[in-house]
């Protein structure tokens, strides 16, 4: 999405350039979020689930039901409800979740770090393994290793994640006992540290609870590897295709003409260039992991955002759904921005 602008200009111009960029970004963020809210909000209202039941339950007498309905403001016209929601949302108040009774933001502050932790680790695994594999496949195009990477990647695209997840648990947890089971940390350790960031690995490490830390590691490793595998599948394939593209460029031949070693040609020259579009791919795959880990979270009893939103949706807990969607939307836009910035950093042509 990077809109490239010709370079040059003095400090004043550069300043103005960044100001326009910032303004543009704010507008993009605002309109995207507004669109997200609007779409979610109206979808939420046409969903044929009565949100009142979620609060009062099935057995509630009629008057209890009516009162709850009014408290939710469901008797107002749709547009008015939306307006009220927007006004509150602007002040950071996304209402309370019906299901958990907490303010939605509190819930998200709890659930999001769990997802973040998992997705980040997953992406790291995907990047660390996926890029070298992709490079190898590109350099040895058509060889056994290339086919292997291709099939590995294709399998990653095609295997249902819940199947792989359960099989992973069965083998590595139940049979082999190499990793800990579902959940973020064992109950024994869960009260040894105080949640600060809600990212268990960080919290335990910062508080020096190393036993708890290692326990958390052994819990996260399997789901993270699983997500990592899916991200690896994507990243390695994209790396391969970008590298093939770069390796066919004239400047690579020029680098060889200079007498550089093949390693240097590949890593310093081709990869540096392939890294530019790769950044976008990694950001995208990261965003996908952040939003798409619903099933993984279910299987690994991971109290993350994906589960939270799905669960809320099924219970017509619209405040929670809206809040969660907004957060994911914002993350998406933010990741876009970050990859945009990195893009600029890596590619002098867009500076």
């Amino acid at each position, binding site marked *: 999405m990077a809109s490239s602008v010709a370079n040059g200009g003095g400090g004043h111009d550069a300043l103005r350039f960044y100001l326009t960029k910032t303004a543009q970004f704010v507008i993009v963020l605002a309109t995207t979020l507004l669109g997200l809210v609007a779409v979610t909000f109206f979808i939420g209202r046409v969903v044929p689930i009565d949100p009142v039941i979620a609060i009062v339950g099935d057995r509630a007498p009629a008057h209890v039901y009516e009162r709850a309905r009014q408290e939710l403001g469901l008797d107002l016209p749709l547009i008015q409800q939306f307006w009220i929601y927007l006004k509150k949302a602007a002040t950071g108040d996304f209402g309370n979740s019906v299901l958990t009774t907490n303010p939605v933001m509190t819930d998200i502050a709890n659930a999001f770090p769990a997802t973040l932790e998992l997705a980040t680790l997953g992406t790291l695994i995907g990047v660390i393994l996926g890029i070298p594999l992709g490079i190898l496949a590109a350099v040895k195009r058509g060889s056994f290793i290339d086919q292997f990477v291709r099939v590995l990647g294709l399998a990653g695209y095609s295997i249902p994640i819940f199947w792989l997840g359960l099989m992973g648990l069965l083998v590595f947890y139940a049979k082999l006992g190499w990793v800990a089971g579902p959940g973020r940390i064992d109950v024994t350790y869960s009260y040894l540290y105080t949640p600060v960031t809600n990212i268990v690995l960080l919290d335990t490490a910062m508080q020096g609870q190393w036993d708890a830390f290692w326990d958390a590691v052994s819990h996260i490793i399997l789901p993270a590897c699983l997500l990592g595998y899916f991200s690896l599948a994507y990243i390695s394939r994209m790396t391969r295709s970008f590298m093939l593209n770069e390796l066919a460029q004239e400047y690579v*031949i*020029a680098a*060889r003409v*200079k*007498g550089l*070693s093949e390693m240097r040609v590949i890593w310093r020259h081709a990869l*540096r260039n392939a890294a530019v579009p790769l950044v976008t791919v990694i950001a995208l795959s990261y965003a996908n992991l952040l939003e798409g880990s619903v099933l993984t979270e279910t299987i690994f009893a991971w109290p993350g955002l994906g589960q939270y939103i799905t669960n809320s949706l099924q219970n017509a807990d619209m405040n929670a759904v809206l809040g969660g969607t907004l957060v994911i939307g914002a993350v998406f836009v933010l990741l876009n921005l970050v990859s945009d910035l990195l893009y600029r950093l*890596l590619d002098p042509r867009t500076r």
Partner: protein
Amino acid sequence: MTKPLLDVEDLRVRFHLRTGTVEAVRGVSFQLGRERLGIVGESGSGKSQTGRAILGLTPPPGEVTAQRLAFDGIDLLTASKRTLRTLRGGRISMVMQDPKYSLNPVMTIGEQIIEAYKAHAKAGRNEARDKALAMLEAVKMRDPQRVFSLYPHEVSGGMGQRAMIAMMLVTDPDLLIADEPTSALDVTVSMEVLRILDELVSERGMGLIFISHDLKLVSSFCDRVLVMYAGRVVEELEAKNLREAKHPYTQGLMRCLPTLADDVRPLPTLNRDPAWAL
């Protein structure tokens, strides 16, 4: 002339493709001393592939064979990868056609020159830097300091081409292959570039293979010319004698150009004789 710098005999480059095998270069032989050798021919006649085969940079499906392919007595066909690497860029260099594509877009020009230098000379960062700057100056760059830290997209085609030359000459090679170094440039700029190459040959005693499709240019710039057609050398002659070429192909090429000097109408066109390709 003593021992030739480059000795090529029966060089062949084949590409095995789906549609069959294409022989891009078919039995080219020549010897090169410390002189300017031009290779001309129309598009697809195998000029570039000849140049690349010498450096061992024929792209993947290609296959290179030759009776003899020796540089300064070193057999390039049997040389180890390591030897080839030290030769490449060190003693043989190549200036490529289009600076827009041949310079790494994400590295500054200075970095790329330094990299070339350090690949062959044990030198510290500062020494390499000085050398690079000196080189930029040698190719008549107006503000070497500034150009040093520019990225390829920030310089014009002419500057890029000169930077490319600087990069390829920083190691003081004995042989330079220049593959259409000026065809992407304006007439006025290309004259400047040629002047630089010319000086290098006459002052350093470097061997130069100058690939071009511009007969007029080659005849005025080089000492000796190889005329290629369909992968073969159809004629080899002194540049100044190009007007007296024997081969009908060379003659045709010379005549079909419009000139300011006289107004021929219609222009003579080339009637290809299948026999030329044999």
